[in-house]
């Protein structure tokens, strides 16, 4: 991680971000302003005056929130996280969780209890995995042929086949996986990490959401909300196309020299104004923010600009092909952000595009094509740059799918049917950040309906993530009015030790 380099003015910038303003002292500390010794002397004296009018002031849990990097209480394996969220519920049966029993009984009626979401189109007809599985890597992990590139990183990943949330439907499922409970508006995992650990970069937002070109994720701003945490910790949306951040780019008429001239002129105006009021240091501080803004314009732009990456890297991520261009670009940006000290990045797909209630036979391969190569590239690229050890990579959705068919158009032809929701047993994979590579964790029943062995609930998962960042899920809390909030509020939650390398 590029945590400890110091640039001129960086201290000031950190303070600025930390407190949302420049106090007199912050200005003084910055040599950039070249305050005279005389000026400094009387400013100090001003502090003396302030001090004398303050009676007894013990420190009452100062509510001082900032983004400066913080040391976690426990030993940390991970310092950054990239979550590729697969909204909709990818079919674990067709991608990660081979079941010979289902293949054998393909077409038969399912006996026993089954939990449908859409009863109007429900059916008990069993549908086995529609694609072949193959053993991959030295570890021999079985992965579907729909995901050949992910197959190539089998030895790097932990495949969890026993996920369980029992929170039906997409919105609640998303919240359960990302915020710890199936209701909207709770603080997200990213917010908690940034709250607890700050950011390694003071030139970029600490928590970034990379949205899909189709628009916001379906739960909107709640996808990266700070919930009850201070708003400093909310995610910053980086748009799927240029401009990737608001107000970072000049409108077309101000491009090039025009804005440079303008900033120079503005500085001149402000300097003339400030010269008349040498004692009003806030004017100096505000002038400095233009420098900072200009730097953010550059550094943020630079972080989002993938043109400096080699052609080989572009190919690795599939940016050279139209089907993977968008997702590959966003995965690459995610890597660049983490490389520059961003703490948490989440990449969103199109709406709930993994929600294959129908036509799974034709639609699932398309979704896989879009993400397979870029997702695998991200892991490979992080690894070769030495970033995988400290970057926790996550790939998964809010649910899985049922072993029986859903019949949306009246026909039970396998070309048009889909699979209904399954929140009782589903799969996801993770890599890096101190987790075990080449390892398959847990199992579902013989029909891949319920997780039965080494079940990992959404709460366990979140507790484990916190643990990898050196945080204890039982200790990480925030006082909000009359109550105390936490990411993991389920008392049964446990760190899944076996996932850890």
């Amino acid at each position, binding site marked *: 991680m590029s945590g400890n380099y110091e640039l001129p003015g960086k201290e000031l910038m950190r303070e600025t971000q930390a407190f*949302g*303003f420049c106090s007199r*002292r912050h200005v003084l500390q910055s040599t950039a302003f070249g305050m005279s010794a005389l000026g400094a002397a*009387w400013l100090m*004296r*001003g*502090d003396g005056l*302030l*001090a*004398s*009018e*303050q*009676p*007894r002031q013990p*420190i*009452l849990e*100062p509510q001082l*929130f900032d983004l400066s990097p913080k040391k976690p209480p426990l030993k940390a394996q991970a310092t950054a996280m990239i979550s590729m969220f697969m909204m909709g519920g990818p079919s674990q049966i067709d991608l990660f969780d081979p079941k010979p029993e289902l293949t054998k009984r393909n077409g038969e009626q399912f006996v026993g209890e089954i939990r449908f979401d*859409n*009863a*109007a189109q*429900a*059916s*008990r007809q069993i549908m086995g995995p529609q694609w072949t599985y193959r053993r991959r890597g030295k570890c021999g992990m079985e992965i579907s042929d729909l995901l050949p590139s992910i197959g190539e990183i089998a030895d790097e990943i932990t495949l969890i086949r026993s996920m369980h949330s029992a929170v039906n439907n997409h919105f609640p499922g998303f919240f359960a996986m990302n915020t710890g409970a199936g209701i*909207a508006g709770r603080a997200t995992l990213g917010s908690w990490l940034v709250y607890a650990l700050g950011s390694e970069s003071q030139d970029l937002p600490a928590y970034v959401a990379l949205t899909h070109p189709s*628009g*916001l994720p*379906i739960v*909107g*701003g709640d996808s990266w909300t700070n*919930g009850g945490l*201070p*708003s400093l910790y909310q995610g910053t949306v980086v748009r799927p196309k240029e401009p990737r951040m*608001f*107000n970072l780019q*000049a*409108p*077309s*008429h101000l491009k*090039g*020299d*025009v804005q440079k*001239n*303008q900033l120079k*002129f*503005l500085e001149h*105006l402000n300097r003339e*104004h400030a010269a008349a009021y040498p*004692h*009003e240091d*806030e*004017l100096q*501080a505000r*002038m400095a923010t233009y420098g*900072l*803004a200009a730097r*953010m314009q550059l550094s943020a732009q630079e972080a989002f600009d993938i043109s400096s990456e080699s052609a080989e890297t572009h190919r690795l991520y599939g940016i050279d092909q139209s089907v993977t261009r968008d997702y590959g670009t966003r995965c690459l940006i995610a890597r660049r952000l983490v490389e520059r000290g961003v703490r948490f990045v989440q990449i969103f797909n199109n709406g709930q595009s993994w929600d294959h209630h129908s036509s799974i036979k034709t639609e699932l391969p398309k979704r896989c094509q879009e993400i397979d190569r870029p997702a695998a590239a991200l892991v490979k690229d992080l690894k070769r740059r030495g970033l995988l050890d400290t970057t926790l990579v996550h790939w998964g959705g809010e649910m899985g799918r049922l072993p029986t068919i859903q019949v949306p158009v009246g026909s039970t032809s396998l070309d048009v049917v889909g699979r209904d929701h399954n929140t009782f047993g589903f799969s996801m994979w993770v890599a890096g950040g101190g987790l075990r590579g080449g390892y398959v964790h847990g199992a579902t029943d013989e029909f891949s309906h319920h997780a039965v062995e080494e079940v990992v609930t959404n709460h366990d998962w979140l507790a484990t993530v916190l643990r990898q960042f050196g945080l204890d899920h039982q200790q990480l809390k925030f006082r*909000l*009015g*009359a109550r105390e909030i936490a990411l993991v509020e389920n008392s049964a939650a446990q760190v899944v030790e076996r996932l850890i390398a």
Partner: protein
Amino acid sequence: MSSCLLNLPACFVSLGWLLIFAFEALSVQVVSGNNHTLLAAEQGSGALEVVYFERNIRPILKAHCFHCHGEQPELAGGLDLRLVHLMQSGGDSGAAISSGEPSNSLILDRIDSQEMPPGNKKLSEDDRQVIKRWIEMGAKTVRPEPQNPAEAKFTEEELAHWAFQPPVKPLLPATDAMRNSYDNSRTMDYFVAAELANSGTTFAPLASRAILLRRLKFDLHGLPPSTDELAQFLSDDSPDAYEKQVDRLLSSPYYGIRWARHWLDVVGYAESDGNVPKDQLRPHAWHYRDYVIDSFNDDKPYDQFLVEQLAGDELIDGAPSGNNHRHVELMAATGLLRMGPDVTQTDNTLMDRNQAVAEVLNVIGTGILGITVGCAQCHDHRYDPIAIQDYYRLRAVFDPAFPLNEWKRPSERLFDLTDDQTQAAADEIEKQAAAVQNDITSRKREHCQSIQEREIAKVPEELREAIRSAVNSKPQEQSEEQKQLLDRYPTVRTVDWIVGQLIEYDRKAYEGFVAEEKKVSELRATKPLQRLIMAVSEQGRDVPVSKVFFRGNPDTPTEEVYPSEIAALVSTRAAGSIPEVSEQLAQSTGRRLAYARQLTDGTHPTVARVWVNRVWQHHFGQGLVSTPGDFGLNGSVPSHPEILDWLAVDFMDHGWSTKWLHKQILLSRTYQQSALPENLRSIPLDAENRLLSRTSLRRLEAESLRDAILFVSGQLVSTMGGPSVPVTEDGEGKAVIGTQNRRNGLFDSVSGAGIEALRQSMYISTPRSLPLHELQTFDLPDMKPNCQKRNASTVAQQALFFMNDPFVIDASMRMSELLARQSSDIATQIEDAYLRLFSCAPTTHELSQCIEFLKLQTEALKANSDPDWKKVMEENSQAVSLTALSILCQSLLSSNRFLYVQ
């Protein structure tokens, strides 16, 4: 980031942490309160001043130790630290102190070993030293102590705090010489001058008239002066030109809009409930906002203003009527008690209800009393002489309006005060709409019935009757066989189920019904608006019993309490008691009315002072008391206590007229000073400008900035009153003006609000969870629950906003078009821009600088090869010159000269 510096949790006291942080950063010793005088005296004379328990030691122990060692029924370690003799007799480990022997005093052992106090909050080195010295000097008390600590709950020192004594008009300090030396001085000037003279400095020169007008206009209207207004004022040579201008501005309706905003900060006005995950909008809150605006414009006496807001409902005889304008006004006034965060619409536990009431008390405490009453909700106040019992006695005044056990959710407690005529018109439309809806509902049901038959028909014939009977049986009455049958054919469902899932069974029919129902809602949307008011009333005279909640927890009520003002605030005056139930009112206890009358009887120690201080704060940038919500022992000491008292008494003597108060301040020599002292070398004598040796520069507040930009670009729409202009999230998650259109439940687009989007910021909706981005960027406060003082942050996002935000770019373009319409001469255009923005014509140097800049940018624009821009240039021959002018406007708009009032 919270944008209000002072909107901290009730227990968390104002600027404290900020200053502490500053001290720590520089390793400046924190010299606090009473000990400050002590140490200062030492430094001066070298002699050691005697340290006393009541003055020097008790405040430290009260803040850090009393909670476990005194206030709790169970004494920790059997040790009570509230009295010296109790410390001497000690606890389980023996005596806590040994007079004259610090090394033999357990209390110091425990402090030194960091064992006490437990937790992260340790005593400062200063505190430790003072305690040590006190023991060395014999552990003295000022006066003999009572045996029973209950009789020494508060010391004379605490109760003698200045803010708990009623204000008394002070003697004038000024000599004749001083009076003669300043023309047109106001009384307050004498006090300011005296302090300045003591410090060896003096007033700054008078500000120029143009600067003064701009200052005045932003202060009173939140807008810059128009060029006409400026010309008129500058050409008025009469001696009372300035006073006439002040009167003109005070009588304009813009005054009420600007000053109502200050009051809305005090009461924590927001247009949503404030629940974090599911923030509910408060679409009717605006009635209260308009009430406040009208009250300021009418110069409603502040005492009456308070009485109406605390007890407007109790001023109405019988049930309020929508046909009675005064009733509507009084009920809207009580909105003050409904403005706090209140999540009970969605989360309605006892704790949530209790929290909603606590927020109301927090607002009344910090907002009206200037006392952090809320700190005594769970335990005795750490600094002020306020017992937990005091808190619940004050709360008992409000309990009948907030009965925890007969709680109404926000939606259940709206008062429908629609007048009869409006109601009749709405009823007629509702009748039509209901008829149409009934028809749709019954046809939909019939259709679903037929779907059910269709699904049954898919079942083998021999099973059809059986499954029909199964599906129509209640689930709990179904036999095992019936259940199995239904399991086999999951698409056979009850008609009710199919109605709910129609989209899955028959999408086309579903969409048809949706379209029909949309017409019904369109019809309903044509109804005239009902007047629904967020107000307070009581539910008869069967009142809840008020109790102290142990540790603030409503699940653990203890002793019963009766309504009264906080004891420390009545200890020095003869305020009547508050009856539990007044005989005058049929529907209400009258407690709030009686309390409001006490607050405004002219003898209350803080009420007038707190308001005077707030008005002062908004004219000078900081209050006489710089902690406007905390006048208690932990608050700041007034910079000019005499002015505060003089104005407070005079204000009450002048009928509590806020406009009178404005005039006292605005016509003063102090207010009219320049931002530049005569001699910059005098600045160190008053670095923080606490002595008012000049006028401090102030950054425009969020609303003023947005309104001013709209105003100078000729866009501001000045419609007053009515429902707020909606704010929503756009496709990129930015809070913008407008409403969201959704398709299939997903975001589709935002419909703008048209001309409404250009209204003053006061009329833009302020949901707690969705502040308009132009306002949020400039520190619109987070109302949790209210705001004592706006933050004025200086962050890079603000720079980016001025550099690139569409709001600024668009306004600059509008402004350049406006200038170009007025004149084709460049110099005239620049002069016009300067007058609009700075109320000052450019100097020749500035003019030539601007012309130079326009030339430079004209060339740069021509050379700009951005394809979008090139297209604009090709299509419009005026584009380059107009755009160059707009960039000049943008630069001037972004400049500190515009952003700050001087």
